[in-house]
């Protein structure tokens, strides 16, 4: 059955619709109405609609008759468009006409329906009103023909808002579509449902969105993300609930969803920047695989985010030049505290380093810059622009240059693209001129450019002009002046003027050039030149009296008022430089006064006044004459001005005190105008935004925040995600990425590269340090190594020296070995430290020893230890409940590696060994120091992923206190519905930590936490354990709380992998099958929802029973169901060729069954089936187990 066919079989029958209709239209008869056959259903449906429909027709009619011919006229062409030969366009025929369409819609033939729908859509496309057809159209929502259906959707989305009551008829169809097993149908149902803007269905939409947000199909989740802003715009009161959904979707790991959910985030809650923290690194890493439109949205959002979270990379440039000293970065100071009394040499070194380099870029900041850079190569101009603005706003000065080339490339695109890009380039060139200078020629203007592009290019060229390139630019400008495009010529003249003011060397040349233009035949050119010359002369008038004279002559010819006014102003202002000409100009002007434009008249009055003050002998009478003329002018501005000036300059008895100051008033030295680019200071708008383009705040614009003074806590971005979930299938496409998905993840896990580096340096340098201290630094040293691999460019010189040293230390052991021997060495180091520091033996150590005693099979030291380790792990995997134990014993026969003869009762939570907390990366760091005498084959090492440790609080952020946790898989005794979380606190600071406890627990509704008992004292170098219980309510939501010491509080959160949300139960195979069946049958409408099947190919290493069982039980806390041979199995089944493995468990909170079946087939093929009432859990579990089995 194709998907399409499924779609066709959507719940269609008219029964439901009729019911709804009747409840809508006729009231409460619903219960009594007989169940109709589909055939008669249609009929009665039509009847039921009749009254309503008539109402619509009537309303249309009155509109047409009373409201004016508008309606009528609108419909007339529509009829022609319809093409039918039906009679004329009068109002009476209108209903008839539509009756025609209605008839077609009611017919049984799909082709007729389709034809009708096509005509209706054509009407909609032309903007004609087709709303009165609503009742006839809406019932076809259930039509089997896919194209009719689609067109009905189009119609619905367009008119549902206007006809809310009738639109409700379609809802049930969509609701059913939401439950369809086909993801595409679910998605399309949600899409249309959320698109019809009917307020009454808000709760339904909300429900649908919530459900879809946890759908197993990423495509449906994407649709849910799209639906969020739709619902929000319909009913903003849903915001809080929607934010919850957004938060959930933000955590989604597929590229398909990322772009859409960030878009929803931007529309609904852009202020909730805190939601981004946990997803920041994931978004950065996924970015390159997100579809292009999503990339734009994400990059713009991350720009804003980075502005709030990181320090300005350019702020310390000046400090650096001075030799540092100034402010210390967050990390620098942090470090000082850490090292303070411990090792003074180190401290001095660190302090010196901090002084030399006061700014350290947050690795997350670097991550963003690095991951966006390749997108400059995108074919999509919007993506390129988004990256460019990100670099402009966030990158250190030295790195911004990379965007220039890409932006210049966009200049060869469509003219609209050029227009936008040039606007942004113009803004950038003001701040960062050097960036675009090499591309000067790309901004040369071509005669084929549209004027608006030409003007913008001129702007850029002007901004780029400096002493060295001004001559070429001016030569270029000269050719532009010859252009036929007069607006452009005017702009060029202004540009020349600006170049002349900015660059002193060329002022005279420009001025001469402009003066030559005064003889141009085009008046516009001349006028523009005059205006510009006026501005230039203001800067150094004394030198240029001959130019002024020349211009005075021009008054005879130039007619453009603005130019005349400018000349008059110039002469007036500098009449002292042209004492002979000025009065003559005034004489001429007085003669033509009445015929001048107003601005010219005003300037004549000004000129007269100024001349009167400087040269009253010659001009007194002229001035009087001009003032008299002005007194009777039609324009009151001019009359006012004349009165005012007469009072001011002509001495009378009554004239006030002001006339004394007339000279000062009129002949004050005026500051030269500053010719500025209109793009100056536009960069306070985020570049590339609409607001920037318009230079005005557009609705919904999010202000780009200023850099913070001190960086907020970077640990908020730490995420506890099992590394294998990171590697999504899409990432595999980029081969490079697959190579180190782990790195990109762990890289950001904590503080800055530099500080971590020095930290680990000190740790590895001091072998005598306590064990716990080393374990603390382990995870960092891994990062610093990572840094050396991929972030070389950003490392400063001093760092490199240090690194060299460190590398030398490591050299003796090759890289590949480190992974294998890591754990072993872990223990060795542990033991060494134990021997040295025998006084501080922790409980866990004792436990380890007791266990190693219990395994007496091996004599050789190191090997026995490994054995112990493995056993411990299996022990931890196996819960102690009795039936399960029996079960594991059965398995044991096949599992040669898991020798459980000496299986001890599981240790209490408090005594889980410490060495599992040592990350293997420590060993990679220390391998140079340790004795790698016994090299072990990789096979003997158990996978390190068993019982994973997660970091809760990193040592750096915790100021010496580090906390790790694991899910111990023990039942939590105080409350069986809680998941036990075992935490290990290590105090690697030099001072004691007191009163360790939890506070301010923030949980999703329904979740509960049992806090761990307060730890009174954790002295320096000590390690302590505690167990807490969390009821996660069967969700993977994180539990957030504060970890408090006597001095500080840390925000931390614990997020469980789905496999930890269950506890194993014992089932026989028969029971298992029964339960499985029950699950399948129960909740009929959800058929198929609680079974998820996935085909897979088993990893090569994972084809034997042991490996499969181990991997599944590692991924999830389940127990194995004994297979086939069991006696309970009533009809004896012959042992299958391809074994089937079954696992069972219950979720911790709601005790829902979780059944997992792995059926193997030929050549490593297998089928994984998960049955669980809780769909979300089932979906996530499938993913996790799938990964565990295939990798």
């Amino acid at each position, binding site marked *: 059955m*194709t998907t399409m066919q499924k779609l066709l079989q959507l719940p269609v029958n008219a029964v439901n619709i009729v019911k709804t209709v009747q409840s809508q239209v006729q009231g409460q008869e619903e219960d009594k109405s007989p169940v109709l056959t589909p055939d008669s259903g249609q009929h009665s449906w039509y009847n039921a609609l009749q009254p309503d429909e008539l109402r619509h027709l009537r309303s249309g009619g009155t509109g047409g008759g009373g409201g004016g011919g508008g309606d009528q006229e609108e419909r007339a062409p529509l009829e022609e468009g319809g093409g039918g030969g039906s009679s004329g366009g009068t109002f009476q025929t209108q209903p008839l006409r539509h009756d025609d369409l209605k008839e077609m819609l009611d017919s049984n*033939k799909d082709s007729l329906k389709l034809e009708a729908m096509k005509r209706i*859509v*054509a009407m909609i*496309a*032309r*903007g004609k009103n087709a709303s009165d057809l609503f009742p006839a159209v809406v019932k076809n929502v259930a039509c089997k*023909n*896919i194209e009719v259906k689609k*067109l009905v*959707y189009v119609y619905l989305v*367009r008119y549902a808002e206007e006809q809310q009551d009738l639109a409700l008829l379609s809802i049930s169809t969509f609701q059913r579509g939401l439950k369809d097993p086909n993801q595409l149908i679910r998605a399309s149902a949600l*899409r249309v449902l959320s*698109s019809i803007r009917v307020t009454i269905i808000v709760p339904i939409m909300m429900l649908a969105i919530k459900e879809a947000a946890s759908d197993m199909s*990423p495509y449906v989740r994407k*649709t849910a993300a*799209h639906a969020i802003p739709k619902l929000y*715009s319909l009913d903003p009161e849903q915001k809080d609930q929607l934010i919850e959904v957004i938060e959930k979707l933000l955590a989604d790991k597929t590229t*398909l969803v990322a772009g859409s959910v960030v*878009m929803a985030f931007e529309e609904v809650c852009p202020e909730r920047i805190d939601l981004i923290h946990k997803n920041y690194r994931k978004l950065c890493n996924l970015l390159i695989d997100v579809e*292009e*439109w999503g990339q734009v949205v994400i990059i*713009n959002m991350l720009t804003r985010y980075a502005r709030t979270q990181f320090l300005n990379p350019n702020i310390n440039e000046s400090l650096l030049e001075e030799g540092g000293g100034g402010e210390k970065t967050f990390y620098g100071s942090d470090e000082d505290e850490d090292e303070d009394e411990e090792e003074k040499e180190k401290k001095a070194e660190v302090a010196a380093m901090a002084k030399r380099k006061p700014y350290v870029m947050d690795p997350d900041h670097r991550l963003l810059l690095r991951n966006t850079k390749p997108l400059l190569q*995108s*074919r999509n*101009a*919007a993506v*390129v*622009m988004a990256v460019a603005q990100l670099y402009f706003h966030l990158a250190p000065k030295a790195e911004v240059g990379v965007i220039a*080339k*890409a932006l210049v490339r966009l200049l060869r695109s*469509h003219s*609209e*693209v050029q*227009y*936008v890009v040039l606007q942004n380039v113009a803004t950038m060139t003001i701040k960062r001129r050097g960036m675009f200078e090499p591309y000067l*020629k*790309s901004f040369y203007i*071509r*005669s*084929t450019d*549209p*004027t*608006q592009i030409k003007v913008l290019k001129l702007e850029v060229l002007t901004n780029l002009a400096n002493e060295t390139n001004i001559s070429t630019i001016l030569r270029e400008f000269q*050719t532009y002046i*010859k252009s*036929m495009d007069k607006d452009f010529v005017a702009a060029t003249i202004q540009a020349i003027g600006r170049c002349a003011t900015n660059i002193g060397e060329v002022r005279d040349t420009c001025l001469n050039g402009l003066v030559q233009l005064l003889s*141009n035949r085009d008046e516009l050119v001349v006028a523009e030149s005059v205006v510009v010359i006026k501005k230039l002369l203001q800067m150094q008038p004394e030198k240029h009296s001959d130019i002024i004279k020349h211009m005075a002559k021009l008054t005879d010819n130039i007619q453009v008022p603005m130019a005349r006014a400018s000349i008059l102003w110039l002469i007036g202002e500098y009449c002292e430089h042209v004492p002979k000409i000025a009065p003559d100009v005034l004489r001429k002007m007085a003669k033509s006064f009445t015929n001048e434009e107003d601005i010219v008249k005003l300037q004549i009055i000004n000129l007269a006044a100024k001349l009167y003050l400087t040269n009253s002998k010659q001009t007194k009478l002229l001035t009087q004459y001009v003032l008299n003329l002005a007194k009777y002018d039609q324009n009151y501005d001019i009359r006012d001005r004349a009165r005012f000036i007469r009072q001011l300059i002509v001495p009378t008895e009554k004239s006030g005190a002001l006339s004394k100051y007339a000279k000062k008033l009129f002949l004050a030295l005026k500051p030269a105008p500053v010719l500025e680019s209109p793009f100056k200071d536009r960069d306070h708008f985020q570049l590339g*935004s*609409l607001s920037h*383009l*318009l230079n005005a705040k*557009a609705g*919904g*614009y999010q202000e780009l925040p200023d850099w913070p003074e001190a960086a907020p806590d970077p640990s908020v971005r730490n995420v506890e995600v099992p590394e294998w979930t990171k590697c999504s*299938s*899409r990432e595999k496409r*980029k*081969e490079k*990425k697959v190579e180190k998905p782990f790195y990109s993840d762990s890289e950001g896990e904590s503080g800055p590269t530099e500080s971590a580096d020095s930290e680990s340096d000190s740790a590895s340098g001091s072998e005598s340090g306590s064990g716990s201290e080393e374990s603390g630094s382990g995870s960092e040293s891994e990062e610093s190594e990572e840094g050396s691999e991929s972030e070389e460019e950003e490392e400063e010189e001093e760092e490199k020296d240090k690194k060299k040293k460190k590398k030398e230390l490591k050299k003796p052991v090759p890289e590949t070995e480190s992974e294998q021997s890591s754990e072993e060495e872990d223990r060795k180091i542990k033991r060494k430290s134990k021997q040295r520091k025998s006084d501080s033996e922790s409980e866990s150590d004792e436990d380890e020893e007791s266990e190693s005693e219990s395994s007496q099979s091996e004599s050789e030291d190191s090997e026995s230890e490994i054995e112990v380790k493995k056993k411990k792990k299996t022990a931890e995997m196996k819960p102690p409940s009795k039936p399960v134990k029996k079960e594991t014993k059965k398995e044991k026969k096949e599992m040669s590696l898991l020798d459980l003869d000496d299986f001890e009762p599981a240790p209490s939570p408090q005594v889980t060994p410490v060495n599992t907390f040592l990350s293997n990366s420590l060993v990679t760091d220390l391998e140079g120091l340790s004795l790698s005498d016994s090299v072990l084959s990789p096979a003997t090492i158990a996978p390190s992923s068993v019982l994973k440790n997660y970091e809760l609080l990193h040592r750096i952020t915790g100021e010496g206190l580090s906390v790790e946790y694991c899910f111990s898989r023990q039942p939590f005794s105080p409350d069986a519905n809680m998941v036990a979380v075992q935490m290990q606190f290590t105090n690697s600071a030099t001072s004691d930590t007191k009163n360790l406890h939890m506070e301010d627990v923030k949980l999703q509704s329904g979740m509960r936490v049992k806090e761990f008992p307060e730890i009174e004292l954790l002295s320096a170098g000590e390690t302590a354990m505690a167990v807490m219980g969390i009821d996660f309510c069967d969700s993977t939501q994180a539990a957030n709380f504060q970890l408090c010491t006597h001095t500080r509080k840390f925000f931390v959160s614990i997020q469980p992998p789905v496999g930890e949300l269950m506890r194993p139960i014992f089932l026989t195979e028969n029971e298992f099958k029964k339960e499985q069946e029950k699950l399948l049958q129960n909740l009929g409408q959800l058929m198929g929802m609680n079974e998820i099947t996935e085909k897979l190919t088993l990893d090569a290493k994972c084809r034997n029973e042991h490996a499969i069982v181990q991997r599944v039980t590692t991924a999830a806390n389940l127990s194995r169901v004994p297979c086939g041979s069991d006696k309970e199995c009533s009809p004896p089944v012959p042992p299958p060729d391809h074994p089937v493995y079954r696992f069972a468990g219950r979720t911790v909170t709601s005790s829902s069954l979780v059944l997992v079946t792995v059926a193997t087939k030929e050549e490593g093929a297998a089928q994984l089936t998960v049955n669980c009432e809780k769909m979300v859990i089932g979906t996530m579990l499938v993913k996790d187990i799938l990964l565990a089995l295939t990798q």
Partner: protein
Amino acid sequence: MIHSLFLVNASGDIFLEKHWKSVVSRSVCDYFFEAQERATEPENVPPVIPTPHHYLISVLRHRIYFVAVIQSEVPPLFVIEFLHRVVDTFQDYFGVCTEAAIKDNVVVVYELLEEMLDNGFPLATESNILKELIKPPTILRTMVNTITGSTNVGEQLPTGQLSVVPWRRTGVKYTNNEAYFDVVEEIDAIIDKSGSTITAEIQGVIDACVKLTGMPDLTLSFMNPRLLDDVSFHPCVRFKRWEAERILSFIPPDGNFRLLSYHVSSQNLVAIPVYVKHNITFREGSSQGRFDLTLGPKQTMGKAVESVLVSSQLPRGVLNANLNPSQGTYTFDPVTKLLSWDVGKINPQKLPSLKGTMSLQAGASKPDENPTINIQFKIQQMAISGLKVNRLDMYGEKYKPFKGIKYMTKAGKFQRCVWIAGSDRYYTNRASLIIVTS
């Protein structure tokens, strides 16, 4: 994001509207028409027009304005780029993107727009996916549809959006497996009046037509990848591989697509394949002017320069031109003053020339504007930058595809300063020659 879309034709009629959110009255376009009136040329309408409640962002393609209505902050390029993508899709579907084509296919257009945007946010813009959703109309299909009443809507829902390779449709099958690549280069040059080059740049694109069965993984390598100064890729190309090895590695979309566009830096010397000799004079006081233009090939490595088209905007004072071409035909429009000369192929033995007189308005003074000259041409089988494809390999499928590579050089934008000689004074003029190499 995008609220509504209006399509406006050259005469200012709205002939299609589509709303993705609530309906915006078409009267909002009045602001657009106002701006259109203010602009002297059609292409001078500002792409972004603010109105009291909305913002209009428009693009002009094929003499149709695509006016998007938006209500709040959005990167303008985002909208512009999307509108261009819409036009490209129409072109892809209907062959041309004209008012008539859109009106004829209004239902398909509507279905396309419905799929491309959801709530104003782009949903499916990859042509491969769209073609799975909505089959493009062909003559055959139209006939079949009218007879059988079947439809353009795909019977299968597309899987592309769900797959690992979202730009490629699944289950592609061909009997002849072929992959063609066209390397097309354009020269942009500005040449001053003495004939020396001010700037010259080469823009190139590699267009591909790939019809391969299954999920082929291709790699394309160049002999001289260092030539490529700046590149932009189709999303299918793996960035990292390019950065590390300068190899294009990709799983291609099905059908036609633009794999790569590149820029050859201006640092490299660009050999300009044609030259122009011109002599345009006006005598003061006389109503006659002389016009003399000769074209010649230069550095074409023996390849013929074809489809040469010269056009020039003569000064406004010119009333008419009476010219005599040595080959081809010329037209002069006395209203727009546009002279265009269809030269055809340049024969190196007998250089094409256009000579004659221009008549000026009697008594009018000598024009001081500069005519611009645009030249278009094509050269087959040559990439002017010298870029060469080394090899094309296919992985992931077993059959042997047929591979073809074609080079072409076209004129882009090419400017040249022209002398106009008068009786007593010379004006330096600038013309633009457009040279296209394909």
